[in-house]
C-alpha cells in the first residue's frame, strides 16, 4: 500500500505542471491538455482520499470528473477548430478581442 503523502505530493506535482501549462503555453491545444492535467491531479486526490478513508463517494466523484472532462475537451477542441478557421491561428496571445 502506497502511503498517502506520496500520492498527494505526486498529485501536487501534476497540478503544478498543469498550472504551468495553462499559464505559459501559447498553443491552445496545449492549454487544453494542461487543463486535463489539472483535472487528473484532482482525480488522483479524490481516489487517494477515498481509499484512505474507505468512502466510495470520492471514487464516484472521480468518475463524474472524468465524464465532464471528456465533454469539456470536446467543446474546447471545437472552439479551437472554429478559432483556427476564423483567425488561421491557435495562439492564445493573438486572440485578444475582449480587451478595451
Amino acid at each position, binding site marked *: 500500500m502506497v502511503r498517502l503523502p506520496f500520492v498527494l505530493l505526486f498529485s501536487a506535482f501534476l497540478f503544478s505542471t498543469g*498550472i504551468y501549462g*495553462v*499559464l*505559459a503555453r501559447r498553443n491552445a491545444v496545449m*492549454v487544453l491538455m494542461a487543463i486535463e492535467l489539472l483535472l487528473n491531479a484532482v482525480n488522483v486526490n479524490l481516489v487517494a482520499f477515498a481509499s484512505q478513508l474507505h468512502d466510495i463517494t470520492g471514487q464516484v466523484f472521480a468518475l463524474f470528473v472524468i465524464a465532464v472532462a471528456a465533454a469539456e475537451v470536446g467543446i474546447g477542441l471545437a472552439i479551437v477548430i472554429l478559432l483556427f478557421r476564423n483567425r488561421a491561428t491557435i495562439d*492564445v*496571445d493573438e*486572440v*485578444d*478581442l*475582449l*480587451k*478595451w
Partner: protein
Amino acid sequence: MVGALLAEEGASAAAAGSNWFVHHAYVITLLPFLSGALTLFFGKRTPGKGPVYGILAIGAGLVLSLGVLFSFVGGGGNYEQNVSWFTIGPLHMQLGFYVDGLTAVMLIVVTSISLMVHIYSLGYMKGDVRYTWFFFVLSIFTAGMLDVVLASNLFQLLVGWEIMGVCSYLLIGHWYEDPANSGAAIKAFVTTRIGDVPFMFGIFALIFATGMTTSNIQVISHIVAGGHVSTMLITVAALLLFGGTIGKSAQFPLYVWLPDAMAGPTPVSALIHAATMVAAGVYLVARTFQVFVSANPVALHVVAIVGAITLLMAALLALVQNDIKKVLAYSTISQLAYMVAALGMGEAGYPAAVFHLFTHAFFKALLFLGAGSVIHAAHSNDMKDMGGLRKHMPVTYVTFMIGALALAGVPPLAGFFSKDEIILAAKDQHTYWLAIVLLGGAILTAFYTTRMVLKTFFGEYRGHEHLHESPSVMTAPLMILAAVTCVVGLLGFAPLGAPFMDWVYFGAAPEHAVFSPLVALISVVAVGIGLFWGYRVYHEYREPDPIVRLGRFTTILEHKYYLDDFYWERIVRPVRDPIAAGVYWFNQHILDGVVNGASWVTMRGSRGISWFDRTVIDGVVNGAGWSMELFGKGLRTIQTGRVQWYAVGLFAGVIALAIIFVRT
C-alpha cells in the same frame, strides 16, 4: 322670519294700524341689492341675460311700497326701527329705517319709475355690449336711492347717496369707448363731489350739535328744535347740507354736470337724471327740514334765492338747445329749482315742493322715455334731424304730448297742480318777487316745451332714417306713465280734499287745503302766454332757429353764460394742471426710479448667481464626471483581453485565499 334679524332696539311709535308692510319696509331696500348681486353673478347665465332679477325685485318693491303707502294712509303713523351699527366713544351709530308720509311717497316714486325704466330698457338696450352690467348697475342704483329714502340717520343716508353717485358715474359713462362720454361721467362725479364735501361737514356739524352722540335724523330734529343749540351752528349746518343739494340736484352754481350727463343711455337719464337721484337733493332738504327752519332765516333765503336763480338760468338755457335730451335736462334743472325755491319758502312751501317732486318724477320720466323712443327711431339726438314724427310714431307722440303739457302746466295734468301749489304758497307767504320769478319760469317752460314738441313731432321729417314705432316693451311704460301723469295731479287738488297734503306736511297737521281760483287763473294765463308765444314762433320750421333774433343774448346762452368756460379756465385747469405735472414728475422720477432700481438690483443679483452656477455648481458636476473618466482610464489597462493573464489573476486569488484560510 327675516324681521328677527333686526333686533328691535329703540323701536318707536308703533302706533295703531302700523302693519307688516311698514315694519318690514327695509326689505324694499334689500331686494334690489339682492337682485344686483344675482344679476352680477348669474346674469349672463340666465335666460334673457339677467334683467329678470331686477324687474322681479323692484316689482316686489313696488307692491311693498304700495302696502306701506296704504298702511300710512290708513292712519298707520310714523314708524322707526334701528339696530346698533358701531360705537365710537359717545357716538352711537345705528342702521335703521324711518317711515313717514314723505318716505311713503318717495318709495312709490322710486320703485314705480325704476320698474318702468327697467321694462323700457329691455327694448332700448337690446343688443347692447354691456347689457347685463347695465341692469346690475340699475339695480344697485335703485337700492342706493331706496336706502337714501328709508335711512333713519344721516350716515346711512350718505352711504346710499354715494352709491347713487357711483352708479350715476358708471351709467353716464356706460358707452365709455367715446371719450366725450367718459369725460361727462368724470365731470358729473367730480362736480357732485364738490357739493358732497360741504354735505359731509354739515353732517359732522349736526352730530356735533347733538353732543357727538348720534346722527339719527329724528333725534337731531328734536334737539335742533329744542332751542339749546346755538342758531349760528344750526345755520352753518343747514347751509353745508344745502351744498349737497346744490351738487346732487344740479342747482346754481353746480348745475353744469347735468346737461353733460345726458351722454348716458336715455333710460338712465329718465331714472337717475330726471326722476330720482337729482330729486334726492330736494329730498335731503325736506328730510332735514327742521334744521333749516330752526336756523337763522338767512338759510332759507339762500335756498330760495339759489332756487330762483337756477330756475330762470336753466329755463333760458333750454331755449337754445337743439339736442332734445339737453332741452329736457335744462328743464329738469329748472323744475328742481322750483322745488328748491318752494322749500325756501319754509313750512308753507314744503308740501308743495314734495308734491312737485312727486308729479315731476312721473312726467319727466315719461318725457325722457318718450325722447328715448324718438332717438331710438331717428338715430339722432338733434331736433334738426326730426320733425313730423307725429305720423310715424303715434303712441310716442300722444304720450309725449301728455308729458309735455304736464311739464308746461296745462290743467288738469300733473304739472299744473304742483306748480300752482308752489305759486300759491309764494303768494300766501307774501314773497311776491318769488311768485313773479315762478310765473316767469312758467312762461319760459311753456315756451321751450312748445318749441321742443313742434320741432320734434310737427312739420315735415328732416332726417333720413326709416321711421318706425318703438316695440311694445317700450311703449307700454310710456302709456302707463302717461296715464299716471293724467291722474296724479288730482291728489293735490283742493276741491277733492288734496289727500297728498294730508300725507306730507311739516309742523302741525295742515288745515283744510284751499283752492285759489285767482292764482290758478294767473298761472293758466302765464302758461297760455308761453304756449301761444311758442306756437307763434315755431309753428313752421325755420332755419336758423328764430331764437337767434335775441342777438348777443343768444350767444351768451349758447355759451351757457360762459360758466363752463370759467370753471374750465379758472378752476379745473389751474387745479388740475399742476397736480398732473406733479404726478407726472413723481411718476417719471420716483416711481420709475424705484422700478428701474429694482430691475438693476435684480440684474446684478442674477449675474452673481449665474457666475456661481457656471463656476461652482458646474465645476462640481463636471469634476465628478472628469474624475470618473480618469479612474476608468486607469482601470481599463488591466483588461488586456489575454485569457492567460486572467487565469494568472484567478490562480493568484486562489493562492491568496488559501494562504488566508491556512493562517486562520
